[in-house]
């Protein structure tokens, strides 16, 4: 990943969040408070706009800026969770160009950060249920010497599988946890937006 890909990725996320805003909100309406789509759209639109800054010289600088902008503009739980994740990924990429192995390590730092903040583990019906399998898939491809685009494609597929797997789970974190057994049968909105983030990465990398 280079700076151009990082920027293109963020722009792609902003576009997909705008397009999927209503669907995310519907998902959140079922088990949360119906603001996830609006929040994701607002946050990534602000993040994409913040990248007009020409002073960003490394992949990390771009992604740290994204994270800080999300924290400053989203609110709710997703602002800090997505924001700290992007900041952690960015902090691990102090380079103008990152190979798949380095990017996998950065994704791992992102997972560590979001887990530290949200205290969620796989199976809690959260964004972790899409992120953790995506990271594992990316890591496996990277370790096997795959190209960035191939690793990103594997990560997107794994995230989507993880996303679908949240439907039968009972939520144990966030607002959905108050529903108890009634949260079963609804796909988690956070896992869904995470899958969109990884799909945007795969699509952007494939176009290059």
């Amino acid at each position: 990943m280079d700076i151009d890909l990082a920027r293109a990725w963020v722009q792609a996320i902003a576009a997909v969040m705008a397009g999927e805003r209503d669907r995310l909100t519907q998902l959140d309406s079922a088990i949360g408070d119906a603001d996830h789509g609006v929040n994701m759209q607002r946050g990534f639109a602000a993040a994409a706009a913040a990248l007009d800054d020409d002073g960003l010289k490394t992949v990390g600088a771009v992604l740290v800026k994204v994270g800080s902008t999300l924290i400053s503009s989203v609110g709710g739980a997703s602002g800090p969770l997505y924001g700290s994740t992007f900041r952690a990924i960015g902090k691990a990429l102090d380079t103008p160009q990152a190979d798949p192995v380095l990017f996998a390590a950065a994704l791992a730092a992102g997972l560590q950060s979001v887990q530290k903040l949200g205290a969620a583990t796989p199976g809690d019906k959260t964004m972790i249920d899409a992120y953790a399998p995506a990271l594992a898939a990316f890591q496996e491809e990277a370790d096997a010497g795959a190209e960035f685009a191939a690793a990103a494609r594997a990560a997107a597929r794994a995230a989507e599988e993880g996303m679908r797997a949240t439907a039968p789970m009972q939520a144990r974190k966030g607002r959905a946890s108050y529903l108890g057994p009634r949260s079963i049968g609804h796909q988690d909105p956070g896992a869904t937006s995470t899958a969109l983030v990884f799909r945007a990465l795969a699509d952007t990398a494939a176009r290059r």
Partner: protein
Amino acid sequence: MKKLINSPETVLDDALAGIAAAHTSLRVDRDSRVITRAAGTRPGKVALVSGGGSGHEPLHGGFVGTGMLDAACPGEVFTSPVPDQMLAAAQRVDGGAGVVFVVKNYTGDVLNFEMAAELAQDAGIRTETVLVNDDVAVDDSTWTAGRRGTGATVLVEKIAGALAEQGAGLAAVAAVGRAVNAASRSFAVALTACTAPAAGKPGFDLPDDEIEIGVGIHGEPGRRRDTMRSAREIVAIALDAILTDQPMSAGDQAIVLVNGLGGTPLLELYVVFAEVAAALAERGVVVARNLVGNYVTSLDMAGVSLTVCKADAGMLALWDAPVNTPGLRWES
């Protein structure tokens, strides 16, 4: 959806313009989205800052003023504010004696206030956080995000605000806030779902003859569905849940809040209060103070939340202290 708005995107900005125009006792910074007292904070006084998603008016901006909050940070509708807002608020109102953040226990509010507290401390401001988690409709277990913060927020802000006004130190103000929270239990029942402007339709489907028992203040569903009941039966359900969690005995004194969720007329809230007062009197519990009205709302949701605080003499004295805010006002 029928709402008196200009557009879902501008609801918060437009409402802040109205708050600024309506209340000259407040200073509304629409850029940083921070509401403070127009007169500022007295030097040396501990400052109280609260905030949360909008849609709960008068919470929180309506409780900024003498004897209560120094600043409020309104987030987007049902979305917590961001750390920048809270930091701006803390910097604006710190009178040198530190800042108490009053935070309702929702994942988003907690995370953003945690970040703000770190930023404030980095900026040399001493902070304490009082977490409000009074809602007995959800279990406080490792399997949930813990109890939600609801009606007790008003009591915490009033009583801690009074102690801060009297000149107490940071630790003491935070301690009384925590004590009020620990002594308070709440339970809410919704008759209808609410409609967030951005969602455009009700947050959950609730048939005409059913009620949602144990809702939170965002319309998020609660314990269970049931058929519509009389006010007396609904009060019995709520009070049972509260007193099971916090037993009270004859002679105990209570501050009782019968709070409308936004779409329920005062007539019905008084019907509810009569039942609460009677049920508590039967147990020998003295309703020493009460509030009946819309204090912590959920947009247009019909329904009621009941908060019972087992108050000691110190809390009652602080409750009686003068308060002058748009949402709560009395002489001592």
